[in-house]
């Protein structure tokens, strides 16, 4: 005969659906009926009837009422739970404070990072009519060192694309370059201003917050100008007077009266800063020579028609430039404008994550710091479960269901995280100013209120993550054992706790390692010998009267005590220097025609002023009239040209240059890039004065320079920069990352160690009798400390073993972005591992040492 038991699955399936009050009766009835049916019809039919009967139980009167549970006094339970939570907080103050501190700092870090990330993600996201169809044209040119991608395009490009490509709805141009900076003036008030020349259609995609004037009519006349509120405030007593006034612009290319047609307030979500808007028509009036296919300058912005497939379009326009200019074999593509801020790096002509990398890194850091705080909470609550045996035992004995207990513990962690949120918001408000200084942002805490929903959900998730495991663990006790106070220490729970500690410290070690490496790299970038002395050099603009007539000014400059040398150049040191290709020389390898040469073009004495090292020949000198067509090259240039003795050889670039000297290689640009071929050449004009001053009395010297500048060039504000600051600006992002990661890793380590402290304190307390007995038997304090710290030290070692390969992998990737970088020497590994071990060891020992001072009799009195 077949077995005589009914199949189990129908009830298993429906048990959750059927009203629990009826379940026992119904199961019994059906089982009995099954037995009867077996005798009457045999087991096969009985089983079939049984299954049918079970499913026929699904009737409204028999299934679970959704509101059944709420019949329990909900408000009473809630009040009770809150009360118990608060009592627990009060009774175990140190645990409570450690948990709270961890969650508050974790949440505060997460909030700060969240504000920053949110700001980054909102950069260049505009909400104008056509913003969603806004693309920018980029051009990639190939040269032996790789692919260079830039955003300056030939001026006729947009008009041609509008005609040739049906996908383009309309197109316009933008010109933005420090080249065109000028000074605005009105009634003896002056202010330096950066322009942005914009074509028709600009306001359809870019947001512009007009305080006065409006988008439609501001460029009715090409001599109209729109100024920022800051400029308006400087020039006019009252900014409502601005519109309609005629102001004067003094710049290299654009001079003359302009009529103010609007005043705008910078949006704060735009990635580029400018102080005035001018029409693109105006730009072409000032620089008519730009209107040629071979001159690249303006940015080209397109608004594509709806439904254009980007990759198809990019394929179509790849070789578009060669159809307009047969010599131009550059590749062209467009990128979605709102994405350009975060994906603004180009590798082999494709956009890749630029700033997005930092957004990701910091989101991860925020997540980890928060996770470490949650883990503290989990570990402490589960480790100290024994304190709550009786509570749990009694609750279970009087019929508390497991999920009611779960809800209680989740509620407790929720109360905790909401409390932490309130404090964290306070901390964020206090620290926001410092945070802004480090990140170079202008975040305001009011934006927190716009983000209230995500912030609340972060808090809830924190509460849930913290509370779920303790809830599961604590509510699983058997009531009888719990009441006896003897819950066999569950091996699984111990392993989870150990795993969590390892996880916490792995993150901490990775962070320590990262901070060390970033710091070393930034230090290397700042301290490494650039090959020239960039300290104590100041630069300021050569403009106004000084633009053409500078000889006497430089002579006067040199007479100021404290000025050791003075000259001028195009561009500026530490920023970009000029470059060109298509140079020729004797016995040239044809491929080298396209090699880019960089050059500093300016006054006499530039090389001497920079203190670069001469290895052959001589510097350019006033004593040789022929030096107007002479150059001094660097070693890399000599190598590329293939000359053993380059002095006396010639370089052709249309003009002919005599090579009169060779200097040692030096870093004229940032250290992201390898040193390129380079030369010094003379020019009768420049854009910046470069002055080397003595290290002493710099303030005095600079104020004398200012006085001199103001007598020579009235009406132009004297604004100077230190060249080494320019240079440091190249690594501004790295510096910021270094500072931020330093702070956040300190927080992570602090929270982890606090957790460790509490765990050791607790486990020491649990073993107090063992310690007392050991002391009676003659153990020394040191032996006892060793005993207590061993378990945890092993965990930390495991964490270090996991963390170091992980950290070295991450940092290797980061370092690969630099042309000149430090190597990951073993010392960094030893340092970060050793640091972690010693911090952890001190934490543990501080607790263990306390326990060895216990009074033996006190501890052994009981039992």
């Amino acid at each position, binding site marked *: 005969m077949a077995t005589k038991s009914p199949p189990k699955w129908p009830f298993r399936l429906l048990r959750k659906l059927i009203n629990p009050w009826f379940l026992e009766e119904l*199961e*019994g009835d059906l089982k009995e009926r099954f037995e009867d049916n077996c005798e009457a019809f045999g087991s096969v039919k009985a089983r079939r009837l049984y299954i049918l009967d079970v499913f026929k139980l699904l009737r409204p009167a*028999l299934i679970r009422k959704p509101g059944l549970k709420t019949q329990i006094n909900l408000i009473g339970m809630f009040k009770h739970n809150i009360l118990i939570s608060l009592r627990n907080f009060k009774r175990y103050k140190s645990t409570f404070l450690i948990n709270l501190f961890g969650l508050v700092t974790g949440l505060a870090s997460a909030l700060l990072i969240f504000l920053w990330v949110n700001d980054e993600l909102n950069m260049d996201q505009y909400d104008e009519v056509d913003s969603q169809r806004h693309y920018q044209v980029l051009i990639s040119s190939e040269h032996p060192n790789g692919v260079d991608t830039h955003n300056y395009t030939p001026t006729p490009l947009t008009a041609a694309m509008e005609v040739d490509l049906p996908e383009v709805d309309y197109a316009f141009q933008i010109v933005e370059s420090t080249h065109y900076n000028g000074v605005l003036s009105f009634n003896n008030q002056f202010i330096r201003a950066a322009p942005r020349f914009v074509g028709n259609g600009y306001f359809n995609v870019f947001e512009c917050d007009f305080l006065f004037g409006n988008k439609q009519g501001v460029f009715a006349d090409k001599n109209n100008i729109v100024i920022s509120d800051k400029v308006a405030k400087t020039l006019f007593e009252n900014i409502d007077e601005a519109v309609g006034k005629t102001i004067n612009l003094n710049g290299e290319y654009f001079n003359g009266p302009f009529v103010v047609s609007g005043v705008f307030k910078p949006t704060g979500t735009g990635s580029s800063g400018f102080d005035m808007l001018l029409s693109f028509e105006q730009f072409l009036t000032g620089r008519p020579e730009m209107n040629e296919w071979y001159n690249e300058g303006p940015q080209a912005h397109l608004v594509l028609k709806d439904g254009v497939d980007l990759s198809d379009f990019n394929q179509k326009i790849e070789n578009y430039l060669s159809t307009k200019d047969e010599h131009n074999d550059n590749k062209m593509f467009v990128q979605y404008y709102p994405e350009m801020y975060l994906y603004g790096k180009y590798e082999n002509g494709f956009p890749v994550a630029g700033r997005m990398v930092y957004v990701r890194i910091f989101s991860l850091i925020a997540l980890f710091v928060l996770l470490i705080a949650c883990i503290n909470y989990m570990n402490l609550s589960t480790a100290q479960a024994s304190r709550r045996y009786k509570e749990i035992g009694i609750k279970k004995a009087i019929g508390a269901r497991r999920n009611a207990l779960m809800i209680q513990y989740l509620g407790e962690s929720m109360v905790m995280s909401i409390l932490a949120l309130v404090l964290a918001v306070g901390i964020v408000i206090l620290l926001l100013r410092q945070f802004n200084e480090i990140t170079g942002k202008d975040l305001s805490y009011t934006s927190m209120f716009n983000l209230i929903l995500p912030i609340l959900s972060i808090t809830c998730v924190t509460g849930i993550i913290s509370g779920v495991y303790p809830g599961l663990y604590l509510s699983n006790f058997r009531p009888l054992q719990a009441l006896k106070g003897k819950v066999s220490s569950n091996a699984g729970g111990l392993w989870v706790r150990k795993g969590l500690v390892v996880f916490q410290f792995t993150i901490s070690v990775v962070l320590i390692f990262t901070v060390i490496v970033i710091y070393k790299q930034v230090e290397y970038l700042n301290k490494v010998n650039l090959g020239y002395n960039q300290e104590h050099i100041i630069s300021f603009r050569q403009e106004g009267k000084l633009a053409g007539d500078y000889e006497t000014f430089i002579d006067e400059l040199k007479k100021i005590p404290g000025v050791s040398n003075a000259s001028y150049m195009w561009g500026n040191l530490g920023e970009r220097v000029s470059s060109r290709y298509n140079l020729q020389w004797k016995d040239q390898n044809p491929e080298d025609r396209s090699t880019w040469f960089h050059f500093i073009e300016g006054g006499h004495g530039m090389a001497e002023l920079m203190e670069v090292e001469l290895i052959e020949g001589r510097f350019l000198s006033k004593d040789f009239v022929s030096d107007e067509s002479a150059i001094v090259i660097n070693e890399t240039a000599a190598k590329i040209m293939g000359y053993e003795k380059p002095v006396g050889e010639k370089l052709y670039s249309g003009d002919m240059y005599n090579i009169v000297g060779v200097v040692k290689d030096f870093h004229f640009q940032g250290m992201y890039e390898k040193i390129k071929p380079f030369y010094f050449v003379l020019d009768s004009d420049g854009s910046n004065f470069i002055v080397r001053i003595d290290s002493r009395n710099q303030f005095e010297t600079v104020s004398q320079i200012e006085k001199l500048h103001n007598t020579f060039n009235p009406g132009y504000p004297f604004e100077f920069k230190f060249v080494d600051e320019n240079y440091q600006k190249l690594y501004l992002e790295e510096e910021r990352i270094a500072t931020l990661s330093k702070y956040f890793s300190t927080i992570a380590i602090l929270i982890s160690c606090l957790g460790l402290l509490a765990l050791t304190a607790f486990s020491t307390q649990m073993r107090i009798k063992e310690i007392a007995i050991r002391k009676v038997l003659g153990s020394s304090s040191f032996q006892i400390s060793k005993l207590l710290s061993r378990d945890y030290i092993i965990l930390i070692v495991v964490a270090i073993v996991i963390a170091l390969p992980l950290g070295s992998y991450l940092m290797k990737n980061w370092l690969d972005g630099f042309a000149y970088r430090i190597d990951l020497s073993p010392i960094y590994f030893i340092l970060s591992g050793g640091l972690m071990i010693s911090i952890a060891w001190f934490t543990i020992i501080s607790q263990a040492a306390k326990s060895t001072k216990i009074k033996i009799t006190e501890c052994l009195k009981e039992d």
Partner: protein
Amino acid sequence: MKKTRLGEFQELILMAVIVLGENAYGNEIQRELEGRLDERLSTGAIQTALKRMEDKGLVKSEWGEATQKRGGKRKRIYSATPVAHKALHEMKDIRSQLWDAMPKLGINNA
């Protein structure tokens, strides 16, 4: 009539509960009715009626014994309340009054 009205099926079950007395649990009620009506009933139908009547206060129930055959699950013994007795009597009275009022013609002709 503001009193609780009984459905036909409920009325049958209620009477079975009274007839079975001490032994009135789900399966026994079902067997009793299946025997008398000569058709298969589903446990779900019987139980639904019982639970509804319990809600209305027509029957009450208490735990009974558990047997091996029932897999160790207890029976639930139902008994009719005074309200139910009253309701049954009222139904019977209404019925007999109606029977009395029925014209005899039809039957005689048949």
